[in-house]
């Protein structure tokens, strides 16, 4: 043991250094976020509760039942059923379920959707007592959107994953390429006189 080491040991230099650090830290502000009272800022690209964007024109989901999300889903938690419409023989979306408890929130479904119908919203407080409540049907997904959109401060919303970075947009489907921000407020479709009632109705939905 050299003299320097001996002096270090006798004077507890290392322990004193550590104590100086803890004292310095005591004088800094705590980083704790008092959760129910304070909330953390949500950054763009946060992947939370699933929702179907409510289309301004049809007032319904935009899904075209192309099955891409169901195919790409790593945990296979999306179930889609399509049916033929008897009048014209076209396929339409009959059932669309997401089992949120199995979802890993990778966001592939949002990235792959050719019409930007699906979105992982910024809601993260949706714990429930039963599994059924976290089994999102088509109607529940639309309701999720309404809930999320009503909480948005901006008039429009655009999800980062609708046009993921690093992918040549010329290779994307046309609807995806041209997708702009979607409105977060209920939009008047027709008959401007009846608009106030309609707005109220949608919000209470």
């Amino acid at each position, binding site marked *: 043991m050299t003299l320097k080491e001996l002096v270090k040991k006798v004077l507890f230099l290392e322990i004193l250094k*550590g104590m100086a650090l803890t004292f310095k830290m005591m004088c800094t502000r705590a980083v704790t976020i008092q959760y129910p009272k304070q909330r953390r800022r949500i950054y763009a690209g946060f992947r939370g509760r699933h929702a179907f964007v409510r289309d301004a024109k049809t007032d319904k989901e935009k899904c075209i039942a192309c099955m891409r999300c169901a195919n790409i889903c790593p945990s296979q938690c999306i179930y889609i059923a399509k049916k033929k419409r008897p009048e014209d023989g076209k396929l339409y979306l009959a059932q669309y379920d997401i089992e949120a408890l199995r979802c890993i929130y990778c966001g592939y479904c949002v990235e792959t959707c050719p019409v930007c119908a699906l979105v992982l919203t910024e809601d993260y407080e949706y714990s429930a007592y039963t599994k059924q409540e976290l089994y999102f049907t088509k109607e529940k997904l639309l309701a999720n959107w309404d809930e999320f959109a009503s909480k948005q401060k901006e008039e429009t919303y655009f999800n980062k994953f609708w046009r993921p970075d690093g992918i040549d947009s010329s290779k994307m489907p046309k609807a995806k390429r041209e997708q702009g921000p979607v409105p977060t407020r209920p939009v008047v479709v027709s008959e401007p006189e009846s608009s106030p009632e309609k707005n109220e109705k949608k919000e209470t939905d």
Partner: protein
Amino acid sequence: MNFNEIFGAFGLQSTSFLFQLLIVLVKIAVVVAITMLHVAYATYFERKIIGHMQVRVGPMRVGPHGLLQPIADGVKLFFKEDVIPSNADRTVFKIAPLVAVFATLSSLAVIPFFDTFYIANINVGILYLFAMSSLGAYSLIMSGWASNSKYSFLGGLRSTAQVVSYEIAMAFSLVSIMLMAGSMNLIEIVQAQQQYWYGMYLIPQFVAYVVFMIAAFAETNRTPFDLPEAESELVAGYFVEYSGMRFALFFLGEYIGMIVMSSLAVVCFWGGWTAPPILIELIPPLAMVPGIVWFLLKVYFHIFLFYWVRATVPRYRYDKLMALGWKILIPVALVNLTITSIVKFIF
């Protein structure tokens, strides 16, 4: 004072035995009540201070800034189920926590809080404190043995070895104080420190102070010497099997022990309830400050030191703990004692 008139009405004279007994009982009640309050808020401030040192906030929910947390904890512990393991030695199991509290609470009897307030003024104050602090070790051994659990047993064994080995270093460091003061009476020790302009033995006996503080950490089973209750190895050590009120009693014992050790350090090294004479000379109004304020300030600093070290230093390995006690602290304390005796003999 018109004590005589008041108590005379009840047929009591200030010199009578009953009157003296009454005074002592009132003093005991005051000291115990204040100590209990201190223990409650010592737990609160421990959580707060360590929390802030770890850049957290500590308890925040019960009352403003969590100020009512100790009361909530107390109520919870009081109403918790009291579980006794089926194979435990029931009598010893029940006595052990009482011994822990008794040993530390009775240590408070000789501590002079300020010049006119102490429960007992005995000539062997330091010796009495040593006896009581070693008595506390019995509670650890008893609880460890009576619980009939391997964790408790190991915790009990560890504490026995630890307390026995650190007591020696502690005693030697205080023997040099006794030599300096020429007395084992705690009040006389405080008064003897007034001969210096800085009013404390801390400076001439700095080595003894360091040895004493390290031994005090070991005696009270606080980090970095909390091997008897090492959470990561022994779950909670000797009180694994305790719950509810009995668990609370162990906690009480530990915190009162901390207060007693801090008070002892203040009385023996920091000049007790007195302020440094130089300070009073420089700022005369400070002479108006009552002694209890100085005493409490010094005690709070030591309690803060306990928390501060806990937030900084990790737990020692067991063989290192023993090596530190026997190979370093005891020789250092002995050398310090020898030098003190020589200096005292020459001058």
